[in-house]
């Protein structure tokens, strides 16, 4: 249960970084933290106390394996999710370099031109 509370705190720290900070790089870091919080949430769903890695070693009984091993599906999902986060963050980093070239600043206060 503690881990879910930690995940919730981590999530809101990330959201705080994205919403409140005026520096683009800090916003990207906040976004990264949000992504990690969600990934950790998925991993925590498949976790078992004293679980083993879901790999069958020769000589292991199937019944014992099913009881002990953690759920492998969330791990597969998180791999996909990490790739998606990576591509979003790569794109944002490239975008912030372009924005810096145009404005000479990472500060959102100086960048704002659009009304929204």
């Amino acid at each position: 249960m503690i881990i879910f509370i930690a995940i919730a705190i981590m999530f809101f720290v990330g959201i705080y970084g994205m919403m409140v900070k005026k520096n683009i790089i800090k916003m990207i870091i906040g976004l990264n933290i949000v992504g990690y919080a969600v990934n950790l949430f998925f991993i925590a769903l498949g976790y078992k106390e004293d679980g083993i890695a879901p790999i069958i070693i020769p000589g292991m009984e199937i019944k014992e394996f099913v009881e002990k091993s953690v759920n492998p599906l969330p791990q597969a999902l998180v791999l996909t999710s990490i790739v998606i986060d990576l591509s979003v963050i790569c794109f944002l980093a490239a975008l912030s370099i372009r924005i810096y070239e145009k404005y000479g600043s990472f500060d959102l206060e100086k960048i704002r031109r659009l009304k929204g």
Partner: protein
Amino acid sequence: MNLIISPVILYLLSAFLIALLWKEYEKLSGIACLSFSILSLISVILLGKYVFLNERIVYYVGGWEIPIGITLMVDALSYIFLFVLNFILPLICWFSLSYMEKYTKAGYFYVLFSLISAGLNGILISMDFFNIYVFLEISSIASYILVAFGLRTEELEASLKYTILGFIGSTIILIAIGLIFGKTGTLNIADFTYIAKNINEIQLWFIIGFFISGFALKTALFPFHFWLPDAHSLAPSPVSAILSGLFIKVTGFYLLLRIITNIFTMFPESKIIILGLGLISMIFGSLMALDQTDIKRTYAYSSISQIGYCALALGIGGYYGYLGAILHFIFHSFSKSLLFLNSGAIEYRYKTTKIDELKGLQDKMPYTTMTASSGMLSISGVPPFGCFWSKIIIIISAIKAHYFGIAFICVVVSIITLGYFLKLQRNIFYSKDEFKTINEVNYNLLMPMIILSILISLSGLIFLPNLKIYIDKAVNVMENFKYAQIMEK
């Protein structure tokens, strides 16, 4: 049936081939993308026969049965979305052949175009929560990049805003998927709805709340709308046509529709939330559109208003409500794609979309003026153009459900819509200007617009008995189909 995966495969193949081989040759990559999109349209047309004969096609990827593997499904409802999507995409690609000449590295545009199309097609055929999320992200990331494609300063800023908010929306959807997985241990939609009968109601309300807010952010319903005007008005015009005409409807509205009508069937109350959001965004979008100085911003706010109509019809429900929602989706996709392509044609000649700097287009660009008029009249709801039919059905549905106030507001918003489009027409098209000499745009830019505007003018034909059967089947899916039926067979 392997035809079901062919649109996704064809567009992914197009993206990889262009990225690997032809990205340096701009003309060649454009023609390759166009031919792949036409192949995809042909495969969707061939698929239609099987869908309507068998009611639905279910495809097990890799031969794995339902709780284990990924399952794909096309039924009458998703087929209509697939058909509209695959019909408009080749036209937009055709338009881009000439329009993208002014950009450097147009080869990359076609790569991203193919990726966004593959993602949208994938969302429509998928029956697995996580698979939907992956396709959603493929198309979303491609769209973030496409918004910034011109690399002007405003475009970069719009893309930054759009990326951050889009990421938050996707994260909310992913959390909802995580909750579903934690609660039931399955990601398959059919399996989930089968198990969901035994789950505590409060937990389900929690999940549906996450889903509605995530998809409302993707659809740009009222409190979540503020990224849309920037992103849609600053992107290159073919991209705006995809985003406004297709992207927000497939990633947001279609999935919202599935969630409300087919997946969480145990909560009819959730429709009230959608109705409220739709009503507010309808009024707000049309009022904001009155006071814009840029054509594309007017169109973008108009999109918010019209997607509000779709959501409103979905919220009212019943046969007429669902029929109105589907028809408004179809006609608005055609009309709004046409209008954004049209603004692209104007931008191609005048290099600007500011209302003050454009005058007297009637004499200089007669065909552009004609197509623009048909699109604008259609969205304002003037007979016999497309959106008139869907709007009148939405009003009928509101009256049948005894929401007389809502029916009245629908009429008023429609009049406001006509107001801002007439203002645009008088200022831009039907005014006098003798100073600039500007010619009509070329064949590649003109033909897609003319095809779209002819289809809009003939859209009343959809009520012919031969065609209406198909729409009725889709409405029947929304009214009666539950994913759990697939498990019970």
